[in-house]
Structure formats: C-alpha cells, structure tokens
C-alpha cells in the first residue's frame, strides 16, 4: 500500500472505493447462491428460514451490485484504458457474452424469490439454484480472465494472435474458488444484518434468530479460517510487507468478530463487518499494486489519458449530484426502515391475487 500512495490520485481512489462497493454488494448474490445450494442439501427449520431470507433478497442484491458496478468500469477506463480495452479486443466476444449468464442469473434470482418457487420440491429447486450459481460464477470467471489478460502487457501481442481461452479458464478456476469462499463470508455478514431486521419486524422469533445466526457463523468461521490458511500458503515464499500485515490483522478481526457474535459477548457483527471491509480493501490495493508492476514491466501503463482527464471540467457536477443523490438514498433508507412492511412482494402475487379473485 505504501508503494501505491505516491501515485494515489482521486481517480484511482474513486476506482478502488467504487469497486469495493460493487464487490461487497456482489458478494451477497454470489455467496448467497453458494449458500442456497448448500441449504437445499441440508434440512432444518433454521435452514429454511435462512433459505427464505437469502432468496428474498437475491434479486435486489443483483440489481444493486450491477448498479454499483457501472462506476468502477468508468474509472477503470480512465485509470487503465489500455489494459481494459486491449483485454476486450483480445478476448473478443467473451466479455460481451457475459451478458447472457448475467441476464439468466438475474431472472433466476427473481424466480427464486417467488412463493411458488419455495413450494417446489427440493430436487427441482436445486438445479435452478445451481444454474443461478453457475451463471454468476461464469460472469466472475470472465472478469478474472479479462483482468489477467489486461495486466500482462508483455503477452498482449501473443494473446491477440493466439488466445488460449481454455487455459485461461482453467487458470481462473482456483481464483474463482477463492472469490466464492470470500463471497460466502460477505453474504454471511449481510445476512447477520438482515436477520436483525427480520426479528425487529416479527418474522423471526429470538430463538429462530439465534439458531439461524449460529448456523451461519459456524460456516463463516470455517470458510474464513480456510481462506486465511490458503492466503498464507499462497504468500509463503514472498516477503511479508505492511499490506500483508494489515490483511492478516483484518482477517483476524473478522474471524474474532464472528466468534464474539457466536458467543454473544459483544458487538461481534460490527467487528466482523469492519474486518471484512478492511480485508477487502487491502486485497484490492494489493491487486492494484501488482497490476501496476505488471503493466510497468510489460510497457502497458498509460498515464497520458489520466493526465488529460485531470484537466477536464465537471467535477463540481459530480460532487453536487453525489451529495444530492446520497442524501436522497439516505432518506429513502430511513423511510424504508420506519416501514413495518410485510414480506417483499413476490412476482407471482399478481397471479395469486387473480386466483383469489
């Protein structure tokens, strides 16, 4: 992180912050899809409660994640235009093709939220959940490949002539596995916050809440410890710098937060969220440092666009819009929090109402 500080400008900071928001939001549908598949295999009342909770918020979270994903794309184009566009040309139709699994995942998320889907037998629900997960994982895999192609400037010409996509896909799988594990943790944290709201609105009794949280926390601790061990193994032969220490500490805070929450002895949920947030930010910063090093070595770092962009007007319009819209969103959230709403509407409510009629 220290090595990036001299180059840290407004655009890079905005890229990292908005990317973090996008990934944090994306972790809910991605990790949620993993959990939903698992929850189709295991049984229990707390499992059913969790399954319903995640299913109900899946479509909304995909929508929010896509919305949040537009901004990092914009700032990436300013910060790394060559890496982004060259990767696109090298990958050809692969990157636009991700619209297909994204659309499938989005509509399946809406399907999974309906009351009628909840009544399907588990053996029919599982394939749908697996397709949803596979669609989101496919989108993530293409982005991982796009990033790897973009940052290795020394291979651009070779890959433009001979793109070995199969090899790239195989190389991306382990990384996608790590992403899925991390997303599961992210989704768990999201659920911990949502469960509080569920109890406040009377949808869960305190006992049900405790059981649901316990199930999630045990799973999250298991995955988080595993993830931390894998990170240590991956880092084994490399020097340990300050970034790594921050990441370790953040992971420790997160796992400790889960433990505290499990034993209900303090504000564990807040600690877990803080730890996860810092860990995610540090990972993004470390990735950015690595990308810059690769691009500098390969001669693919383009600073000219950024320099020209810095001279352009319109910042005040952005800041004004940001303040206005952020205030608006806070007001909307306040309004929503105050509303003692029943379950979010299901898309087959219309049909149900018609049948009643």
């Amino acid at each position, binding site marked *: 992180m220290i090595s990036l500080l001299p180059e840290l400008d407004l655009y890079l900071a*905005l890229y990292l912050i908005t990317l973090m928001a996008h990934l944090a939001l994306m972790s809910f549908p991605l990790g949620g899809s993993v959990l939903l598949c698992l929850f189709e295999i295991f049984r229990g009342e707390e499992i059913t409660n969790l399954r319903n909770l995640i299913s109900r918020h899946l479509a*909304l979270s995909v*929508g929010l994640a*896509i*919305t*949040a994903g*537009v*901004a990092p*794309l*914009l*700032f990436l*184009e*300013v910060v790394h*235009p060559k890496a982004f*566009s*060259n990767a*696109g*040309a090298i990958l*050809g*139709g692969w*990157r*636009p093709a*991700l*619209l297909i699994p*994204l*659309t499938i995942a989005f*509509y399946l998320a809406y399907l999974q939220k309906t009351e009628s889907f909840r009544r399907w037998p588990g053996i029919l629900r599982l394939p749908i959940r697996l397709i949803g997960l596979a669609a989101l994982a496919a989108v993530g895999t293409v982005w991982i490949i796009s990033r790897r192609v973009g940052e290795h400037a020394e291979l*651009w*010409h070779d890959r*433009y*002539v001979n793109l070995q996509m199969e090899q790239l896909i195989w190389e991306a799988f382990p990384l996608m596995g790590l992403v899925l594990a991390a997303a599961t943790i992210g989704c768990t944290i999201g659920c911990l916050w949502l469960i509080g709201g569920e109890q406040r609105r009377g949808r869960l009794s305190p006992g049900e809440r405790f059981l649901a949280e316990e199930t999630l926390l045990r799973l999250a601790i298991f995955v988080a410890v595993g993830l931390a061990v894998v990170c240590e193994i991956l880092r084994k032969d490399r020097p340990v710098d300050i970034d790594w220490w921050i990441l370790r500490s953040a992971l420790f805070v997160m796992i400790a937060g889960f433990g505290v929450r499990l034993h209900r002895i303090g504000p564990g949920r807040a600690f877990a969220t803080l730890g996860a947030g810092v860990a995610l930010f540090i990972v993004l910063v470390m990735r950015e440092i690595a990308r810059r090093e690769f691009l500098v070595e390969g001669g693919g770092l*383009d600073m*000219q*666009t950024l320099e*020209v*962009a810095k001279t*352009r*007007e*319109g*910042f005040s*319009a*952005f800041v004004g*819009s*940001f303040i*206005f*819209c*952020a205030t*608006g969103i806070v007001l*909307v*959230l306040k*309004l*929503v929090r105050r*509303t003692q*709403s029943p379950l979010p*509407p299901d*898309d087959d*409510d*219309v049909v149900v*109402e*018609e049948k009643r009629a």
Partner: protein
Amino acid sequence: MDLPHFPVFASDAFLPGLLIAAVAITHVFLAQFAVGGGILVTFFEWRAEKKGHTLLRDFLHRFFTTLVLVSFVLGAVTGVGIWLVTALVSPRPLLLLVREFHWIWGAEWCFFCLEVACGYAYYVHGRTLGFQKRFWLAAGYSFSAWMSLFWVNGILSFQLTPGGWLETGSVWAGFFNPSFWPTLFGRTFASMALAAIGATMVAQLIRSYDESDTREIVRNAATLLLPLALMPVAAVWFLAVVPEESRRYVTGANVPMTMFFALAALFSVLIAGTAIFTLLKRRPLFHLPGTVLLAALAFCATGATEFVREGIRKPYVVHGVLYSNGIAVEEVRRLRRRGIDSLDPWPLRDPEKYPTRTVRNGRRVYRELCSSCHTPAKMNGLVHLTAAWDRQMLESNIKKLHLLKTFMPPFAGDDEDLEDIVAYLIWLRKGTE
C-alpha cells in the same frame, strides 16, 4: 488528439457495429420506458389520490412489477452491455467520450443509484405506505430517471454537434451543445409514449380487469401520449441545428437515411393517432394483439431514430474530430505520410491465410480502416461494393473515397498501403469467384 491505439476487433462474418446497434437500441428502448414509466407512475399516483381512484392504485403495483422485471433487469444488463460492446468495437471513440465527460457520467451514475433506490423502495414497500410517502418515492424515481437521461443525452448529442467544445475544449460547451435541448425534449416525449403503450399492454394482460377497468386505465395512460404532438417541433429544431451535410442525408441525399427518418416519423404519427383516438373515444383502439403491434412499432421507431442519429454523423463518430473507423481527423495527414504501420503495431491473427506480404499488409490496412463498417465478402462486403472496379479504378477511387462518397472517411494510409489494400481486394475477389 493523443488517443492511444487499440487492437481492432474485426469479424469476417458480421459487422461488429451491428452488435452495438442491437444492444444500444434495446437499451435505449428499455431505458426510455423506465423514464416514461416513472412519469406515468407519479401521474397515476397523483390522479388516484385526487379522484379517489382505487383501480389506478391497484394497477400501479402491477405496472411497476412489470417495469422492474423488464426495465430494471434488462435495462441494467444492456446498460453494462453497451459499455462492453463499445469498448470492444469502438474503443477510441469511447475513450474520447470518457476522457472528456467522465464527471458527467459519474453524475449520471449517482442519479442512476438514486433511481434504483427509489424504484426498489417503491416496489417493495409501495403498497404499505401512505399516499404522501408513496408519491414522493414515485416522484424521486421519476426525477432521478429523467436526470439520468439528461446527463447521458448531453454526451450522446455531443457526438453529432460538439458545438463550442471544438474551439474551447470546454466540457460544458460540449455538453450543452446545439442539439442538446431538441434531443432531450424528443427523448422525453418518446419515453412518455413508451410508458403509455406499456401501461396499455399491462392493463390488457390483467385477466381480473373487465373492459371498463381496462378502458379507464388506457384512457388515463393515453394522456401521456399527448406530448407526442410536440415531436415535430423537436424534430424541426433538431434538423435546424445539425450540420448541413447531416441535414442533407435525411432530406434525400442518402436514401437509407431518408427512409429510416421517414419511417420513424410515420411510426410516431401512428402512435400519436392512436392516442388521439383513445382520448376522443374513451376506449382503447386495439385489443391486446394490436397493442403488441403498437409496442413493436414503438420499438421500430426507437431503432429507426437511433439508426438515423448514428448514420447522419458519418463519416464521423464524433463530428469533425474522429472518423467512424476511429482514426482522428488530425491523424490522417501523418498516416498518409508514414503509413498504417506507424499507428497499428498489432500482428495479424491468421497470417498464413494470406499468400504474399502485400496481401498480408492489405489485410492489416482493411482491418484498421475498413473493418468497422465492412466485412471482406459478407455483410456490406468490400468485394461486392467494389465488384465493378478494375485495378486502376480501385486505386483512384479508394484514394479519393471521401470525395466519391461523402459518408466515407478519407483513406488514411501511404501509397504502399493503397497498393496493398488493392492487392488484398483483388486477392479476395479471386477467392470468391
């Protein structure tokens, strides 16, 4: 101009530009439906409260569910899609727009976030809120959706009429360019019309509504079609401010452009006619199949309008600055002196397919200068377009292509590049005989 060069994505089978067209037209249609949908929901909320109309209130939830399922999902996905496809097919124009207008795009994103927040809050909690809160959510959604249109419209209209930006380089001069207001008004009217047609369709799809219910909703929705009457004013205003050659394209000089412009106008007249009939007779003109056809007409009108908007810019993608093949106007002279090699260092993907060095270089010239709008021998194929030209004509015509056909960019290569592209075309011709 100082734009970096990117490798070209070329396909021998289809025009990459069609990818942009397919995704962009779908997105514009859905996004305008979302903007108009917001206005319609706010209007219905107000009307339902004012007249104590429970039917309109009941309809609102069903309509908004459709809006969420269609526009929030496909609109969001195609929005990302435009970005990805444009980065693939036209990376240089995209970078120019991002470099100049990134803060404007950032502002648009802020309003997009507010739109999504208000929209989902209305969708999830709308039925349990009182009128005042529900109305403010609908109004917030409507305003933020329209503001998204406001910001994006400045960037899109800039491409045809960069205005004062050309002299001053000022972002605001480029944003509030000569065609900004007419296109903003035109898009707003079109959005309202799309929402009215969408509402008519949803009303006719609800089985529990009897004919009088449907009539009532359609009659209210048709009010939003009325601003279409002002569309001719926006169109005339637009034509008055576009560059002279663009105006000539739609007034006869370019037959496809004139036809598409006329089609867009005809479809708009048909839709406006439907509105007038519906309001006068207080009942829908068509049953469901007719309404679906009307929606299809609206989609075609959107497609035709977007096609004209893109087409009349030619040979530019940003008027006076960048040609449609991504070559900057100020680069042409240098490229004529130093050749394509000085711009494009990327190797060929399949060099073994081309027999000689000349043909290979000709292929590279094609890739750089022609592939954005032409395939070698399929869609808009060079072989077919130049079939009647002998070698001498090929050389002289390609060299003065921008004079021969005003919508073509000038040939931006040196003498060797010219010889090579001619050799490539002759080699292609032999292969297709």
